[in-house]
Each structure stands twice: as structure tokens, then as C-alpha cells.
């Protein structure tokens, strides 16, 4: 008795399911990209076309193929495969491409795909929410997944993709350009983990958008530790970073000790303790990203004490004019200065400042490290929490510049949560809590 009722119930369920599937109320144009099937809501599709000979637009993003004259209307042509970093088959020059012409928010776009298939009708109820492992395309651009005639179609959310704000577009451009040496982590190496945990990719993107923090081997260790912490902190809640506050919260533990303040005596001792006791007659230091100058003055005092005989010169620069413009004439309260440095202070009208001895050592420059760095060769580079806030290509360039400027056996100090990938050129020194590297001879 029991079994029969169960059977009928099963049958009922199946019938209901069948009925539901039969009700076709969603049509989509299907096409393929890199061998996978995709669909776009037919209501967004104006027409399909075959076209070639797009007019190249200089300086456009890599995924913009150019513009095309569609019966008198000039439309921009976007290559979906480049946009999503999928392998694009090379066609002969000027061969015709399959185009889907889309209408999004009154604007018309042409989208290049591998090949257009047909129009498929499905029941909208049968569309399931996207699952991260289905696809190479970022989940936020997918509105759902549906099966039809034993083929699985990924439905793209074209509104999301093309109606995005300028900022987001930049982010995609950045992604598309990011295949440079220092940007090792994304797809290949750590692909496995990231695929399973798609949130980490979002966080990586949003950190760059909000705070220009780019994850690279320089800070990957911290980023992944922080991500585990973050997951625990947010439990099952929303892991993603929605605004500046979220991004700042995520980065809160990243900054080095004594950012925007004088170094404590212990910290300064840890830095100088790792260095040799003898120094050259002329000792040069480069301090890019010096901000308001607290860091620079700390270095100046610590080195003055360590090497009283040397002629020390510090090139300190920052690209934030507001921050650096007060650095040469900084005044402060005596309590803000660690005891070890107080011997270098003089009292002026508006508070304490550093004596001429220290000020003569330091040269503050309004300067962007991405431009040519004209200082002579240096013995020490203090570059805390700067590299992480440059785009990956810029990181490798600046690191290259540092390597070039640094003398053999010179020291490089990076942020408390940064590291230089181990290489022929750099060796790490144990100097907790300071992160120091030596350039090998």
C-alpha cells in the first residue's frame, strides 16, 4: 500500500515537472564560445549578422574590435572571447565574423562570437542559478544555466556586462592586461583553489577597484591568510566587498607598523640591527612613498645614530602633493617622538621640529616612482606598502628600478606583510618584525 502511494506521488511529481518544462516562455539566441554553449535573452537581441572589416579604433580597450557601419548606424564591436579571456580562433584577415547585435539601454553593440547556433525556447522556471564551476566566465555576468535537448546553456546577463559603469569597465581592462610576469597567481598556478572558492577572485578585483591594491606574489601570502580570517569573520554572511569601507576593513591589518607615525625605538633598532656595523663614507637611501615624512625622519634618525661618521643622504618621494608638501617643515609634539630620537629635536615657535643635521640629510621630492627615478645608486631602499598599491605591470617595473638603483649587498625594506619572490637577485634576512631583503652580490 505504502509503495503504491509513493509511486503515484512520484508520478505526480514527474508530470508536474514535465508540464513545467513544456511551458516555453523564455527564448534565447544560442551561440558558442571556446566550445561551450551560451545563450542571450532574445529580447536583448536586435538581430544577428555576419560582418568583417571593422574600423580599428586607436587606444580602445583590447576587447573592442572597432566600429562598424550597420546600415548607417555606427556601432561598436566587442569581442566576447577577448572580454572573457577565452581562446579566440584566428580568422583570416577581414574574414566575416558571426555577430550578435544587442540593444542595451538604448545603445547598440555588436558582439563577436565563435558561431551562432539557433533560437532555443525554454521554460523560465527551468533556468537555474549559475554555479561557479560551470564556466570560465565570471559568475557575476551569468544570469542562469539551463538544459535543453541534453545541452547545457549558460545564459549571459548582457545588461550586467555592457551597462556597467566606467569604473567597472576599467577593471575588466585591467584584468585583460594582467598577463605580466609578476601577476603569477590568477589562472594557472592557483587555479584549482580559486575555482572552488570564487569569492576570492571577487575580493581581489574589488580591492583593486576601491583601493588599487593588487594581489601579486608580493602580498599573496598575506592576502590568502586574510581571506581565511575574513571567511571566519563573516561566517556565512556576504564575503564580498561592496564599498570603500569594506575594502578598508579587509586591508586593515595589511599596513606596516608605524604607518603615518614615527617608528618606535625597538622597530628602528630592528631595522638597523640587521645591517652591518660599518658603512661607506657616502650612504644613500631611497624612500619612495614617504607620505607625510614620518617614516623618512625615523630612518634619518636611526641611521644617524648607527653611522655617525657617514654622509647620509635620503631621497624621499611621494606622488601625493598634499601629503608631502608639509614634510620638509613638519612640526609635532615631543610626546609623539620616541625617546631615542629626541636628541635631534629643536624647539621652534609652533612646536618641535628636527634639527638642521637631520633636515640636511633628507630631500623631499614630489615625484611619481613610475616616472624616471634620477637619484644616484643607493645603499638602502625603504619601500613599505607601496608596491602592493601599483598595478602588477607597474610592480615589476618599480621593483626592477629598485634592483637597478640598489648597490650590491644593499638592503631593501618592504612592508610588514609584503615579500619579494625568492630569486637569484634577492635574499631575505631574518629581522622580525621588519621585512628586509639583501641584493646578492
Amino acid at each position, binding site marked *: 500500500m505504502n509503495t503504491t502511494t509513493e509511486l503515484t506521488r512520484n508520478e505526480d511529481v514527474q508530470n508536474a515537472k514535465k508540464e513545467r518544462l513544456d511551458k516555453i516562455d523564455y527564448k534565447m539566441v544560442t551561440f558558442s564560445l571556446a566550445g561551450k554553449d551560451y545563450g542571450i535573452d532574445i529580447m536583448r537581441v536586435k538581430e544577428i549578422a555576419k560582418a568583417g572589416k571593422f574600423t580599428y579604433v586607436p587606444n580602445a580597450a583590447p576587447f573592442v574590435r572597432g566600429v562598424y557601419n550597420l546600415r548607417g548606424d555606427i556601432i561598436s564591436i566587442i569581442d566576447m572571447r577577448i572580454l572573457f579571456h577565452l581562446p579566440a580562433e584566428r580568422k583570416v584577415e577581414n574574414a566575416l565574423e558571426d555577430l550578435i547585435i544587442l540593444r542595451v539601454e538604448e545603445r547598440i553593440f555588436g558582439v563577436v562570437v565563435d558561431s551562432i547556433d539557433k533560437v532555443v525556447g525554454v521554460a523560465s522556471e527551468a533556468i537555474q542559478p549559475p554555479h561557479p564551476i560551470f564556466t570560465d566566465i565570471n559568475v557575476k555576468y551569468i544570469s542562469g544555466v539551463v538544459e535543453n535537448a541534453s545541452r547545457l546553456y549558460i545564459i549571459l546577463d548582457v545588461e550586467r556586462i555592457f551597462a556597467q559603469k566606467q569604473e567597472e569597465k576599467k577593471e575588466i581592462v585591467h584584468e585583460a592586461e594582467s598577463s605580466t610576469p609578476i601577476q603569477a597567481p590568477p589562472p594557472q598556478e592557483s587555479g584549482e583553489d580559486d575555482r572552488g572558492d570564487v569569492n576570492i577572485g571577487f575580493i581581489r578585483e574589488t580591492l583593486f577597484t576601491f583601493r588599487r591594491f593588487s594581489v601579486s606574489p608580493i602580498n599573496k601570502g598575506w592576502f590568502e591568510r586574510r581571506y581565511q580570517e575574513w571567511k571566519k569573520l563573516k561566517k556565512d554572511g556576504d564575503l564580498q566587498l561592496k564599498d570603500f569601507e569594506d575594502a578598508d576593513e579587509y586591508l586593515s591589518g595589511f599596513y606596516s607598523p608605524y604607518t603615518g607615525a614615527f617608528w618606535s625605538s625597538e622597530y628602528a633598532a630592528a631595522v638597523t640591527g640587521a645591517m652591518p656595523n660599518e658603512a661607506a663614507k657616502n650612504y644613500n637611501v631611497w624612500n619612495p612613498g614617504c607620505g607625510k615624512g614620518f617614516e623618512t625622519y625615523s630612518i634619518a634618525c636611526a641611521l644617524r645614530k648607527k653611522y655617525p661618521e657617514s654622509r647620509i643622504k635620503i631621497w624621499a618621494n611621494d*606622488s601625493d*602633493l598634499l601629503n*608631502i*608638501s608639509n*614634510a*620638509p617643515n613638519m612640526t609635532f609634539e615631543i610626546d609623539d617622538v620616541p625617546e631615542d630620537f629626541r636628541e635631534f629635536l629643536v624647539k621652534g615657535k609652533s612646536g618641535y621640529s628636527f634639527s638642521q643635521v637631520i633636515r640636511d640629510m633628507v*630631500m*623631499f*621630492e*614630489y*615625484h*611619481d616612482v*613610475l*616616472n*624616471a627615478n*634620477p*637619484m*644616484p645608486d643607493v645603499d638602502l631602499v625603504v619601500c613599505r606598502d607601496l608596491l602592493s598599491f601599483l598595478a602588477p605591470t607597474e610592480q615589476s617595473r618599480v621593483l626592477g628600478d629598485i634592483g637597478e638603483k640598489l648597490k650590491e649587498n644593499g638592503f631593501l625594506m618592504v612592508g610588514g606583510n609584503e615579500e619579494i619572490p625568492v630569486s637569484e637577485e634577492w635574499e631575505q634576512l631574518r629581522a622580525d618584525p621588519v621585512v628586509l631583503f639583501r641584493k646578492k652580490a
Partner: protein
Amino acid sequence: MRVEYINPFVEAAFNVLKEVLVNSDVRRGELYLKSASTPVLGVAAIVGLAGDVEGRVLFDMNRDTALAVASVMNGEQLATLDDLAKATITELANMITAQAVTKLHDLGFQFDLTPPAIFTGDNMEVSDQDVEALIVPMETPQGKIEINVAIRERA
């Protein structure tokens, strides 16, 4: 560029322009840094610097602006960018740079000036490798004058 050098140039540019353009509405735009090659708007006056530092100051404006500024400075409407107009712009460059250098001298920096030179033409570009320039954009009723200061410490 050394922080101490910035203000003297900004102030000198502002004061001198305000003076020669007879109290008209002169405004300073946002300062920024630019690297290497600089397209020139059409008229460029250049003053070289030497001494503790090496570098140059470039005053960049388009022909219309140059002509309008020269007209105001001469107190008569000039029709073409002739020798008189060019000499006037050169003098303007000299005045601003000299005043900046005087201010810097008071701060203890020793600079020397070279005599100014003026370049005019279309599609000109100034390239000096390895120097980044500070751009001080000045808005005047006669048009925009960009002051492009590239100074490097003598190593």
C-alpha cells in the same frame, strides 16, 4: 622635483601674471606630474636653469593666447605674432622664472638662468628623457598657460 621648489614657481607665476595682465582673473589649476615627452601647444618659451640643479622651465600656450597676452602687455592690439609679440612672451617667461629664482635664493638655493628662447610652430614636441616635469596650469582670461618645470638635483 624637490618639494621646496614648487611653491616659488607657483607663486611667481601667479604674481607676475596678475601684474602684467592688469588684475584680471588669473587662476591656478591643479598641479600634476608628467613624464618625458610633452606636446607643445604652439608657442613655447624656454628658460634653462643651472647651479645647484639642472633643468628648465617651459611656458606653453597656443598662438591666440600668446597674441592676447602680448597685446595686453603692450597696451595695444597686436595682429600677428611678430617679433614684438615674441619678445613680449619671452620677457614674460623671464619675469616669472627670475622671480621664482629670487624666492629660491632667499630659501638658500643657488640657481642661474639662461637667456630665454622662444619656439613657435605646429605639432612640436619637447622630449627630455629621464626628467619628470611639474605642470602648473594657469587659467587667464586670455587663455591657458601651462608652466612646465623640470628640475633635477645635480647628482
